[in-house]
C-alpha cells in the first residue's frame, strides 16, 4: 500500500510539471540557422516556398557539401545560393568557386561576415555594428518590436531604386571597402555603405550580400521587405536549377555519431546491435536478486589475541628482558611441577636426570635449558640473544614444532 502511495504521488507531480511546462509561453528561437526545413524566424522555409514560386514550381535543392566537393565530385551545373553567419572559404573552395563562376554560373553569397581567402583575393572588407544583435535573443526581440529601422536602397535597375525599411537586426553588417574597379554596388544603407555588391571581374555573376537575414522567413513574410528578397532571388536566371548550399552554416547533414563507420557495415552493425542488446539483457536480468537480502550482522570478535599482542608490545618497548625471562621461567616451573610432579626448588643432578627421563628430552639439552633457567633464577641480567635462545630451548622442551 505504501508503495502505491508513492507511485500516485510521483505521477501527480509529473502531471503538474508537464501542465506548467505546457502553460508557459514558448520562447521564440531567434537562432539563425538558414535551414530550408526550419520554420523559426531565421530559418528559410518560407524562402524556399518563394523560390518555388519564382522558378515556376521547381524547388531549390539543399546541399550539405563544400563547394569543392559539389563542383569537382558531384559535377553540378546549377547556380549556387550560400547563406551563413560567416563565410570564410579556404583556398581550394575559393578557387573552385571563382572558376565555377567563370564558367558562366550565377552565385549569391550572403553572410554577416566574410573572411578567409575570398576577402583577400577579391579585396573587400566587412564591418559589423551592434554585434549584440547577432546573438542576443532579448536584444533581437526588443529591436524587432521597437521597429528601429534602417532604410536600404536597392538599386538593381539603373533607372529606378527601391527603398526598403529593414529592422536594425538585419542590417548589422556592411561593406567597409569595395574596390570600385571590380565591384558594382547594388544596395546600400542609410550611411551609404554597400550591403549588396556585384563582382564584375568574371564571366558569370557573383553577388555578395551582407544581409543574409533579409532572405529568412521573418523578412520574407514581412510585407514591407518581402520584395527585397524576391528581387535578390530573381538575380538567378529563371530557367536554370538552383542549389541552396547549407554546408557553411550547418555542416554535413548526416549522423554525427562516431559509430558511423560501424553502422555503415552490415556485419559490424549486426555485431553492434547484438552487443548492445546483450548488454541491456545483462543489465536487466543479471541484476535481479537470486535470494532475499541478508543484512550484515558483524559477529562478536574474540579480542584476546589482540589484547595479548598489545601487552606484549608494551613490554617489548620497555625491553626489560630479565622480567620477561622470569615470567617464562615461572610458567615453566609450574609446568614441570604440574606435569612431572617434580620439586622445582633445587636444580641438582638428580633433578636433571629425573626431568630428562620424564620429559623425554636428552640430558644435555636439559642441562642447557637448566643453565639458562638457573641464570634467570639467580637474578642476573639477560640480554636479547639469551632470551631468544631460552625460547628455542623451551620450544624443544615443550615439543613445539
Amino acid at each position: 500500500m505504501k508503495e502505491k502511495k508513492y507511485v500516485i504521488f510521483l505521477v501527480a507531480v509529473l502531471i503538474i510539471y508537464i501542465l506548467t511546462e505546457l502553460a508557459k509561453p514558448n520562447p521564440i528561437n531567434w537562432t539563425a540557422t538558414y535551414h530550408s526545413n526550419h520554420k523559426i524566424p531565421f530559418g528559410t522555409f518560407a524562402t524556399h516556398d518563394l523560390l518555388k514560386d519564382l522558378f515556376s514550381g521547381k524547388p531549390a535543392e539543399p546541399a550539405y557539401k563544400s563547394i569543392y566537393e559539389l563542383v569537382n565530385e558531384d559535377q553540378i551545373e546549377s547556380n549556387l545560393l550560400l547563406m551563413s553567419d560567416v563565410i570564410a572559404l579556404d583556398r581550394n573552395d575559393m578557387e573552385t568557386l571563382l572558376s565555377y563562376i567563370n564558367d558562366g554560373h550565377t552565385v549569391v553569397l550572403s553572410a554577416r561576415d566574410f573572411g578567409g581567402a575570398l576577402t583577400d583575393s577579391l579585396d573587400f572588407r566587412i564591418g559589423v555594428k551592434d554585434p549584440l544583435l547577432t546573438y542576443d535573443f532579448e536584444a533581437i526581440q526588443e529591436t524587432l518590436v521597437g521597429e528601429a529601422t534602417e532604410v536600404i536602397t536597392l538599386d538593381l535597375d539603373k533607372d529606378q531604386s527601391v527603398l526598403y525599411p529593414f529592422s536594425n537586426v538585419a542590417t548589422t553588417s556592411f561593406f567597409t571597402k569595395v574596390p570600385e574597379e571590380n565591384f558594382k554596388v547594388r544596395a546600400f544603407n542609410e550611411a551609404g555603405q554597400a550591403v549588396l555588391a556585384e563582382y564584375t571581374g568574371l564571366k558569370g555573376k557573383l553577388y555578395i550580400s551582407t544581409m543574409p537575414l533579409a532572405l529568412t522567413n521573418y523578412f520574407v513574410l514581412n510585407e514591407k521587405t518581402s520584395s527585397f528578397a524576391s528581387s535578390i532571388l530573381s538575380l538567378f536566371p529563371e530557367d536554370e536549377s538552383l542549389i541552396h548550399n547549407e554546408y557553411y552554416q550547418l555542416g554535413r547533414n548526416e549522423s554525427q555519431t562516431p559509430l558511423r563507420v560501424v553502422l555503415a557495415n552490415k556485419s559490424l552493425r549486426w555485431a553492434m546491435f547484438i552487443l548492445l542488446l546483450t548488454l541491456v539483457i545483462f543489465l536487466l536480468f543479471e541484476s535481479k536478486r537470486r535470494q532475499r537480502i541478508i543484512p550484515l550482522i558483524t559477529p562478536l570478535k574474540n579480542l584476546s589475541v589482540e589484547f595479548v599482542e598489545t601487552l606484549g608490545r608494551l613490554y617489548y618497548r620497555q625491553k626489560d628482558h630479565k622480567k620477561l625471562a622470569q615470567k617464562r621461567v615461572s610458567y615453566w616451573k609450574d609446568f614441570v611441577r604440574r606435569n612431572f610432579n617434580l620439586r622445582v626448588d633445587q636444580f641438582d643432578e638428580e633433578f636433571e636426570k629425573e626431568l630428562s627421563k620424564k620429559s623425554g628430552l636428552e640430558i644435555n639439552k636439559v642441562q642447557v635449558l637448566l643453565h639458562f633457567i638457573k641464570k634467570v633464577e639467580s637474578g642476573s641480567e639477560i640480554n636479547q640473544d639469551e632470551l631468544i635462545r631460552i625460547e628455542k630451548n623451551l620450544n624443544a622442551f615443550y615439543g613445539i614444532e
Partner: protein
Amino acid sequence: MPFIRSFYITNRFFYTAGALIFLFVLGFAIPVFSIVAEAAFYLSLTLLLVDMLLLYRTKNGISLERLTTEKFSNGDKNAIRIILESRYPVKVDCKVIDELPEQLQIRDQQFDLSLEPGTVKEVNYDIHPTKRGEYAFGVINVFASTILGIVRRRYQLGERKNVAVYPSFIQMRKYELLAISNQLQAFGVKKIRRIGNNMEFEQIKNYVSGDDYRKVNWKATARKGQLMINQYQDERSQQVYSVIDKGRVMQMPFEGLSLLDYAINASLVISNIALKKGDKAGIITFQQKVNSMLPASSRNMQLNLILEHLYKQKTGYKESDYSKLYATLKRKVTQRSLVLLYTNFESLSALKRQLPFLQRINKQHLLVCIFFQNTEVEKIINTKANDLEEVYTKGIAEQLSFEKKQIVKELQSHGIHSILTPPKELSVNTINKYLELKSRGLI
C-alpha cells in the same frame, strides 16, 4: 509479469552472444563469415525459443518441501532436508538456493543437482547456529534449466518458517544417555574413586559374594535365615543450582559461541543429569542484579521449565554484582545446595575482588567456580616465536595462562572448588565434577 520475474539467463547465453559478435566481426574481415554468423544467429534464436518453451510449457514443473525439526539446538549441527520433485518431461538441472536465516550470515550456499523426469531427490545440509532465538527461513529459490541451458526459470517454493534455536538439547540428550550407561569415560568423564559411603538407605537384599560384609543386616538375616545386606544409594533430592554470570566477562566468543551460551548449554546438560539422578535442579542468572531465578525442583515439568527459562535469557553484558547474588542466595536458597557458578576470571586481581562473596557463599553452600581457559591465548603459547617481539607476546600469553592456574590455587586455598576448562569441554568437565562431588558426599 510472473514470466519476467521468473526469467533468468545463464552464462551460456552470454557466451553465445559473444561468439556471435565475434563471428560478425570476423564477417567484416572475411565476408563468408557474415553468412555463417547470420545463420548462427537465427539458430541461436530458435534454440532460445525452444528452451523457453521447454521450461515454461510445464506448469509448476518443480515442487518441493523443506523439512526441519521444530526447534534447533544451539551450538550443534541441525539437519535440514529439502525434497524436490520434477514434473518436467525432460531432464532439468536445478540450482537450489535456500533463503537461510540472517543470523547464519551465509550468502553463498547453493546446491546443484539434476532431476530426471518425474523423479524425487533430496538435498541434505546442516546449519550450525551459534545464537539462541528465532531463526526465520525464507522461501527456497530453485533455478531450473534444461539441457540447452540458455535460460533459467526461477521457482520460489517452500514456505517461510520460523524455527526457535534453543540451548543445546542435543548435547543434553547425549550426555544423559552416557551418564546413565556409565560410558562417560569415553568422553573424558572419569570414574571417581569412592571415598566413604553413601548413607541413604535404599533396600535390603540378599548377600552375594563381593558385597561389603560390614553392611550385613543381622536382624533381617535372623528373620530370613540367610545373609541379608543393607543397600545404600547416592543421596537424593539435593539441590543443584546453575548460577550463570551474564556480565561483561561472558561476552567473549569462542568458535562463534559466546561464553554465556556455553554456560547456558552446560547448565541444561547438568540440570538434566541432576534431575535424572533424582536431584533438584534450579537456575539463577545475574549481572548488575539478579535477573531471574528458577527455584530448584524435581518435578516432571522442571526440565522443560529450565529449557524455556534458558531460551529466554538476554543480557546487556553489564558488570556483574556478586553482592546481589550473595544476598539472593542467602535469602532464597535455604537448603545447602551445590552451586555451580559459571563465570570467567581473566586475572588474579579480578578474582580477588569477588573472593569475599565467593567465600560467603561457600560457607552455606557447596560452591564450584567454573571459569574458562582462553584457548586463543593457548594457541599463542603453542606456536614458535620468530622474533623478539613475538617472544614477548608469548611470554605475556604464558603469564596470563599461568595466572589462570593461580586462580585455581587461590580458590583451592579458600576451600572453593573450581573448574578451569576450555569452552568446548565445559559440559563434560562440569558433569565430571558433579559426579565427583556427589560420590564424595560433599553436598
